[in-house]
C-alpha cells in the first residue's frame, strides 16, 4: 500500500502551502506503513474530526470517517471504539476544537484510556472563523475578537494530558514530516489514549513558523519517557507563550502501559453488529412477578 492510496477525489481547499498538508501526508505515510507491516487493517481504520480547518481532512482521506460537531471528535472516537473494538481509531482536532469547546472530553479521555490516537492541529488560533484567539494563543495575541490582546494565561496541553493520566503524550511539528510520521506510527501502535499536539502554524492568521523553527529540538535518544516527573518537567520547558528564550522539545514526553478501556470492559469483545442475540422474553420479566 502506498500513501496515495488513501487519496480521495475531493478538491483540497486548505490555503496553498498550509502546514495541514504536512499532517495529511505524515498520516497517510504512517498508516500505509502500518498496513504494509500488517499491524493495521485498512478497512478498519476509522477517523473522526471536529469542525475547523483541520477537519477538512475528512474529505481527503479514503477511510471510514465521522465528521462530527465542533469540539466533539473525542467522544466520537470513544463511541466508535465502544461500538467496534476492532477499529483503529484516530481523532483529528483543532486547538480551539479540542482545548476550548471540547476540553472536558480531552481531560476525561486521558483518564479512560480508550485505545485511540488524538492528533491536534495546533495553530494557536481559530482559523476557519478568521483568526480569533484559542486557549493556546499566547498572552498578548491580537486577533479580530481580541484587538486589545489576549489577557489570559495560555493553556499547556502537554502538561494537562500528563496530569490527567494520558498514557502516550507527544509533540510534533509540521515542518518535521518524517519525525511526525514516526510519532503517529508509535501513537497508533500504543495501546491506550495516545495524544500528539502538532504545532501547525497558520500561514494566513497566525504564522509563528520563524518562532518555532529556531527553538525546536528533538528529545534526546537517552530521554526516559516512562518517568512522569521528568515528563512534567519537560512539558513545562515551553508553555506555549512566545517567550524569547524558550526551547521547544519535540517527541514522546511520556509513554506507559495501563489497562485500556477495552481491557476494563470484558463485554467488549467484538463489533456489536456481529453479535447475535437470543433474547428470552420470559427471562426479562420474571423478576417482576
Amino acid at each position, binding site marked *: 500500500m502506498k500513501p496515495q492510496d488513501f487519496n*480521495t477525489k*475531493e478538491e483540497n481547499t486548505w490555503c496553498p502551502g498550509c502546514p495541514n498538508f504536512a499532517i495529511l501526508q505524515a498520516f497517510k505515510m504512517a498508516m500505509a506503513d502500518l498496513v504494509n507491516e500488517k499491524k493495521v487493517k485498512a*478497512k*478498519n481504520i*476509522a477517523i*473522526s474530526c471536529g*469542525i475547523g480547518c483541520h477537519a*477538512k481532512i*475528512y*474529505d481527503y482521506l*479514503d*477511510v*471510514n*470517517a*465521522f*465528521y*462530527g*460537531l465542533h469540539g*466533539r471528535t*473525542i*467522544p*466520537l*472516537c*470513544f*463511541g*466508535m471504539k*465502544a*461500538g*467496534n473494538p*476492532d*477499529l483503529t481509531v484516530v481523532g483529528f482536532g483543532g486547538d480551539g476544537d479540542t482545548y476550548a469547546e471540547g476540553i*472536558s*472530553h480531552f*481531560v*476525561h479521555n486521558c483518564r479512560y484510556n480508550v485505545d485511540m490516537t488524538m492528533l491536534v492541529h495546533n495553530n494557536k488560533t481559530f482559523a476557519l472563523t478568521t483568526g480569533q484567539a484559542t486557549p493556546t494563543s499566547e498572552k498578548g495575541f491580537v486577533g479580530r475578537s481580541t484587538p486589545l490582546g489576549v489577557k489570559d494565561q495560555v493553556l499547556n496541553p502537554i502538561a494537562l494530558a500528563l496530569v490527567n493520566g494520558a498514557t502516550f503524550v507527544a509533540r510534533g511539528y509540521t515542518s518535521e514530516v518524517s519525525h511526525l510520521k514516526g510519532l503517529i506510527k508509535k501513537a497508533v501502535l500504543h495501546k491506550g489514549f495516545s495524544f500528539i499536539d502538532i504545532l501547525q502554524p497558520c500561514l494566513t492568521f497566525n504564522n509563528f513558523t520563524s518562532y518555532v523553527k529556531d527553538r525546536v529540538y528533538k528529545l534526546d535518544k537517552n530521554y526516559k519517557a516512562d518517568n512522569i516527573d521528568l515528563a512534567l518537567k519537560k512539558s513545562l520547558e515551553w508553555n506555549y507563550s512566545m517567550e524569547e528564550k524558550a526551547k521547544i522539545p519535540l517527541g514522546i514526553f511520556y509513554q506507559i502501559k495501563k489497562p485500556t478501556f477495552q481491557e476494563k*470492559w*470484558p*463485554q*467488549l469483545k467484538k*463489533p*456489536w*453488529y456481529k*453479535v447475535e*442475540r437470543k*433474547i428470552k*422474553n420470559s427471562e*426479562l*420479566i420474571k423478576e*417482576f*412477578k
Partner: protein
Amino acid sequence: MEKTILIGGKAGRGTAVTSHFVGKLFCSLGYYVFNYRDYPSLIRGGHNFNVLRISDKPVFSHKNKYDVILAFDQKTIDLHKKDLKKQGFVLGAESLKAKKLISINVKSILSKLDAPQIIENDIMIGWLAKYFGIDKKTLLVEAKKVFKGKKKALIIKAIEIGYGLAEKKENFKKKGSGKYFISGSSAIGVGALASGLDVYIAYPMTPATPVLHFLAGKQLKHNNLVLQVENEIAVINAALASSFTGAKTMVGTSGGGLALMSEAISLAGVAELPIVIYLAQRTGPATGVPTYTAQSDLKFAVNAGHGEFTKIIVAPGDAQESITRTQEAFYLAAKHQVPVIIVGDKHVAESDYSSSELKISSISNKRFLVENPTKDYKRYKITKSGLSPRAVPGQGPKLRATSYEHDEYGYTIEDAGKTVKMVDKRIRKEKNIEKEVKTLKPISVYGKGKNLLIGWGSTKGAILDSLSELKDYRFLQVSYISPFPKKAVEREIKKSKKVILVENSSTGLLADIIAEKTGIIIKEKILKYDGRPFSPEDIIKKIKK
C-alpha cells in the same frame, strides 16, 4: 375491596423499599396495586412518602384519601392526617402523637433484637400483613425472596414479631394468579433489552437515572455495555459514533440533559444515524423541582435540534407501554435511520404498575443492515423512498457519517442543487414512517361518552381511573406525537361534544400541537403544574364543578 396506604418518613428511612415490598406482597396474592413515590431532592431528612393503592380490580393511579398512614416520623402524621379517611388509622411507634394512632412498642423490640432503627420498617410490614389477613407463609416466602444480604435473618425475625402483634381485621386472601409489579423505569429497561440493546450511555439525571441503574446492574448478564461518561454532550456524541459502527444504542436523560444533547440530535438527523433517546421529564424550567413530575418538555422534545430533519416522538402512558413503545422506538430508529425520543416523565418512571400479564412486542429487533455491501456502495444513495441501505465500518466499503451536507458517498458538499436533492431524500423518508406508525396504534380511545378528555403520557392512569365517574366522557390517548396522527385525532375531536385537554403543564402543550397539525383550537384544559401528578379525584372535581 380497595385500600390506600400512605407510608412516610425521612429520606433514608427506607419508605420506598417498604412500600415496594408491601405492594409486591399484595401483587403476589393476586391483587392490583399502584405505587406512587413522592420524594424531595435530598438524601437524608426531609419528607418522603409513598402511596399504595390496593384493589381487587385493576387500578392505574393513586388516591388522595388514606385508610392507613404508616408513619416513621411525626411529620408524616402532621402533613397527611387531614387526608386520613374517617374509619382510617395511623400506625407508628409509641413516640408519635396522633388521634387514631395504633402504636407499637418499637423501642423495646429493637433493643431486644439489638437491631437498628430501620428494622422498624419490617415490624410494621409484619403488622400490616396480619391486619390485612395475609397468610403468614405467603408473607415469609415473599420476604425471603426480596430481602437479601447480612440483615436477612433479622428482617425476617422482625416481620414475624410484627405479625404477632396485630389482629386480623381484613380478609385479603389469595385471589387468582399473582400480578406483575413493575416501575416505568424498569419497563423502559426491559424494552431496551428485548430490542437487543448493545450500548447504553448516560450521565446521571433524575428521573432518568433508574434506567441507567437497572441496565448497569444487568450488563454482564445480558452482554451489553452500560457507560456513564463526563457529560450529556459526550453521551450523545459517543452514542452516535457507536450507532455509526452498527451498535444498537440508547441514551437517557431529563430536560436539562436533552438541552445539552440538542446539537447532536440534529447531527443524528443529517447523518441518518439510528438512536433512541429516553427523556424522563421533570418539573422545569432549568433545575426546576427536580424530583417531581411534569409534561412541560413536549414541544422541546418535538423541536429539539436545529435545522429541519425527521424525528420520531413516542410517549408511553404506563409501564406496559414503556416496554412496547421502547421496542417500537428501537425498531423505528433502526429501520428508518432516525432519532427517536421516548418522552416519559417522573410519574411513569418512578411509579409501580401492576398487571396480570406483561407483554413484550413481537416487533422485529433486526439491525436493518445491508448483508454484503459492494465496492460502489453509497451510504446516502438517493432512492425513491428516501431510505438508503445502511452498512457499517468493517463490512468492506469505507463508511462515512457527517454533520455537513453531503453527497451520496458522504463527502462534503455546498452545491445548491445537490443540497436540495439530499434534503428532499431525507424528508421523503417521512412518508414511510407515517405509514408505519399508523400500524402501531398511535392513538387509543377508552370509554364511550360523547365528550372527550385528551391526554398523553403519564396522565393515562388518573384519566382511566376517573372514567367510571365520568360516564359522559371518553378518553383519547395520543401516543405518537411525531409523526402526529392528525386524521385520527381530528376525527375523535370532531365527533365529540365537549373536548378537554388534561396535562401536567401550565399551558397545555399538546393543545398547541393539535392546533398546529389540525387547525383545531382546544380551549378547555385541566392543567396541573405543581410537580404532582393528577389523581382521579383531581380530574373528576374539575369536571363536575
